[in-house]
């Protein structure tokens, strides 16, 4: 409370903070969200924030598509175009897919392992606030990044060197404004958020499991979260080093990527992709986990080959460290390196293929309930398979020489990141929305969303495969008439608009279902995992009594036994919807709300602004963060 004393009104400030803390503790009003340390609320904050960034990134994509719809498009100039595609990629990777996955981790992990919260609730809040401030910091670059003119003079700020930020494009010589500074510092800040989250979920999963919840009784989503979190905490430091090096080059005139002093831009590529390839799996493994939960529930069968799915996910994570140079075949590493990385890249397709067969075998012979969630999960399998196979074509070095830097690459990674990760995340949204809102999402609107998106997605990205094979390069702002690219570009733009409509249908569905949606009980899907044993929405304390786990898919086995031919029959005692006995949660101690994570996080973007504009702000931001951390350490975690 030193800050309050400095402000000259110590009593009222302290009193105000105390009242806000009380209001937050009793779950009322805006303060209860600002100071929350409840994993479910933090998860919802993550989801809403990430979805907002998704809309921003989507608008950037639409502008790109409108620009390219016809030859010699004139909507944006090449400078603006570079900034748009850079921010589109950066936003979608770091501000949408990663935090949406984090939203699922937050919402589900404690519920799935039978815990009352994560291991470090305040650190969890800190992760969210750092993500929010980092995202706002990054997005602010649009308005302030280009000193040559404001937003309305037709001179956007924002970084302009692609989401991969290849040196020397990022050096001051080739990118004069502050865009790249915002990019580098923003990603360092976002890295802090991801790593804090990663540590938290590893400790939570390893240490907070309910009695009987052994590692091989954990739902696959929990496994994939564990694996993803390890990738995050080990991959993020590498990009952090590279970003610091870039920042030192730009801010202090260091020579890391300065060719004139003997530096090599290849260092950036190695560092970036050594992070970047594990990052690809950071993006997609959570979606794989989600699909592995959705498919068994709606097939009413256990996941086929559970240990294989788990070990394949782990194998993918290990192998993802040995494939990075397949992004660099054409940089002249030599044929031995290219061959080695080609082989390792082909090999990583094996555990991925194992998973795909396991998912299909899960569906096979099941009594399938084809609702929106399952549609998205099946769509994931199909689209991800196409994406994976086009990836294998890249692993073949001579083939990649032809595809390098063409729209074929663009088509491929959208196929895995939209058709893969995003479809998986939507499957999860339709599956778990009832758990956290208490309402079912509307099926008709949901199916309209799915089909529009599925068709729009294919109409957008399959033409890009053709465009790539026709030789259209990526990252070009316009192309002349007569290249034969006009038709397919127009088709792709129409597809992109269809995706935009499908997202609107989704938003209508959310709002409609929140207001008039059918009420969901505790267990609307006849689920298999622990989160379905508690009411929807779950009470603040999650479990009135910490469950005792006896098997994989424990909840299913509480509801069903098998007859001689292996057909599930409801257990008579308790019936199909046997719920946990619900106490009123009285006497359960929950962690106290806290403002300190917010304050500690708030200092970070100020430090960022300081490095760009005035070093005094660096000191100010550091003081704020330090104050937040000390107050955090000294306040009681629960009262």
């Amino acid at each position, binding site marked *: 409370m030193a800050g309050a004393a400095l402000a000259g009104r110590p009593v009222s400030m302290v009193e105000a903070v105390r009242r806000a803390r009380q209001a937050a503790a009793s779950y009322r009003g805006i303060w209860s969200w600002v100071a929350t340390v409840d994993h479910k609320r933090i998860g919802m904050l993550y989801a809403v924030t990430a979805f907002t960034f998704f809309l921003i990134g989507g608008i950037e994509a639409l502008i790109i598509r409108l620009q390219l719809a016809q030859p010699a498009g004139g909507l944006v100039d090449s400078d603006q175009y570079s900034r748009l595609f850079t921010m589109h990629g950066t936003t979608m990777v770091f501000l949408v897919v990663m935090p949406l996955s984090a939203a699922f981790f937050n919402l589900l992990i404690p519920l799935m392992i039978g*815990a*009352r*919260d*994560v*291991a*470090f*609730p*305040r*650190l969890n809040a800190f992760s969210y606030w750092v993500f929010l401030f980092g995202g706002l910091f990054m997005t602010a670059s649009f308005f302030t990044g280009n000193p040559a003119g404001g937003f309305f003079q037709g001179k956007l700020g924002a970084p302009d060197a692609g989401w991969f930020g290849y040196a020397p494009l990022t050096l001051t010589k080739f990118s004069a404004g502050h865009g790249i500074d915002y990019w580098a510092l923003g990603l360092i800040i976002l890295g802090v958020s991801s*790593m804090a989250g990663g*540590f*938290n979920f*590893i*400790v939570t999963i*390893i*240490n*907070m*499991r309910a009695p009987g*919840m052994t590692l091989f009784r954990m739902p696959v989503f929990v496994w994939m979260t564990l694996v993803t979190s390890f990738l995050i*905490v*080990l*991959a*993020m*430091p*590498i990009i*952090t*080093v*590279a970003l*610091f*090096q870039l920042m*030192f080059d730009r801010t*202090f*005139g*260091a*020579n*890391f990527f300065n060719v*004139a*002093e*003997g*530096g*090599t831009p290849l*260092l950036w590529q190695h*560092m970036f992709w050594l992070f970047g390839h594990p990052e690809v799996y950071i993006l997609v493994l959570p979606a794989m986990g989600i699909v592995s939960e959705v498919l068994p529930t709606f097939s009413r069968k256990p996941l086929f080959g559970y240990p294989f799915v788990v070990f394949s996910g782990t194998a993918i994570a290990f192998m993802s460290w040995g494939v990075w140079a397949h992004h660099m075949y054409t940089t002249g590493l030599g044929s031995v390196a290219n061959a080695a990385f080609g082989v390792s890249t082909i090999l990583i397709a094996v555990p991925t293929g194992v998973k795909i067969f396991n998912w299909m075998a899960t569906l096979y012979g099941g009594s399938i309930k084809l609702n929106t969630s399952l549609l998205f999960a099946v769509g994931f399998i199909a689209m991800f398979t196409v994406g994976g196979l086009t990836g294998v074509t890249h692993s073949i070095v001579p083939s990649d020489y032809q595809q390098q830097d063409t729209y074929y690459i663009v088509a491929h990674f959208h196929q895995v990141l939209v058709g893969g990760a995003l479809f998986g995340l939507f499957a999860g949204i339709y599956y778990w929305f009832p758990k956290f809102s208490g309402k079912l999402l509307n099926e008709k609107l949901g199916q309209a969303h799915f089909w529009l998106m599925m068709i729009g997605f294919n109409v957008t990205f399959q033409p890009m495969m053709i465009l790539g094979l026709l030789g259209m390069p990526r990252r070009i702002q316009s192309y002349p008439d007569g290249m034969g690219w006009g038709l397919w570009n127009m088709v792709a733009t129409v597809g992109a608009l269809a995706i935009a409509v499908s997202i609107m249908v989704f938003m209508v569905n959310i709002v409609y279902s929140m207001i008039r949606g059918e009420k969901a009980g505790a267990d609307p899907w006849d689920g298999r995992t622990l989160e379905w044993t508690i009411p929807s929405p779950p009470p603040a304390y999650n479990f009135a009594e910490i469950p005792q786990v006896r098997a994989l898919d424990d909840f299913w086995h509480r509801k069903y036994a098998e007859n001689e031919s292996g057909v599930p029959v409801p257990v008579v005692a308790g019936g199909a919807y046997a719920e946990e006995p619900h106490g009123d949660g009285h006497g*359960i*101690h*929950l*962690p106290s709300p806290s403002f300190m994570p917010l304050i500690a996080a708030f200092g970070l973007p100020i430090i960022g602004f300081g490095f760009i504009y005035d070093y005094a702000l660096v000191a100010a931001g550091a003081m704020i963060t330090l104050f937040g951390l*000390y107050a*955090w*350490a000294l306040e*009681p*975690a*629960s009262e």
Partner: protein
Amino acid sequence: MQHAPAVHQAETSTGIDNRKLLMWLFLASECLFFGGLIGTYLLYRNRSEGPPFPTDTVYNGVPYSGVFDIPFTSISAFVLLMSSVSMVLALAAIQRNDKRGLRAWLLCTALLGMTFLAGQAFEFTEFYREGLTVHSNLFGTTFFVLTGFHGAHVSVGVLILLSLWVMALRGKISAKESLNVELAGLYWHFVDVVWIVIFTVVYLIQPT
């Protein structure tokens, strides 16, 4: 220094304290962080396009004397290593509830850490006088960023040690809270180990 890991969870699934596990994971990720910096140093070693050089070098037929003062840096490395010993003694003291011992050894560790930092500040100033900056050449860039980040870690460590020392002065640390000291110790030893690697790679092993 975070208190009470979570909601009145009496025991963890593995029996390892949450905070200790967190610290080990953090240190694991720090390995990758310093790995990146040390890797960069090694990549650019001996590739500077001009002086100053770390050791005596003949460049384009002109002899240059190196900036390194190995005996001086050896002493400051020794000081940092000794701080690990006093850190161990601090933890041992509080584990047998010897609060006086804890205060003494914590302060000793922090002072040794500060001595190391002072040595680094002196060294940086000397190098700067001889023309080595983050801008001068690849050696300057990689040297200052690598050792600078290590110095920043030592500074954070000193801050943690001094905070613990203040808590100890107020009698807020007893054998029951010895984990606080243990966690600070884990971090401190890690920073020491990293310095052993840096000292060996940067100062001792010179390309011939």
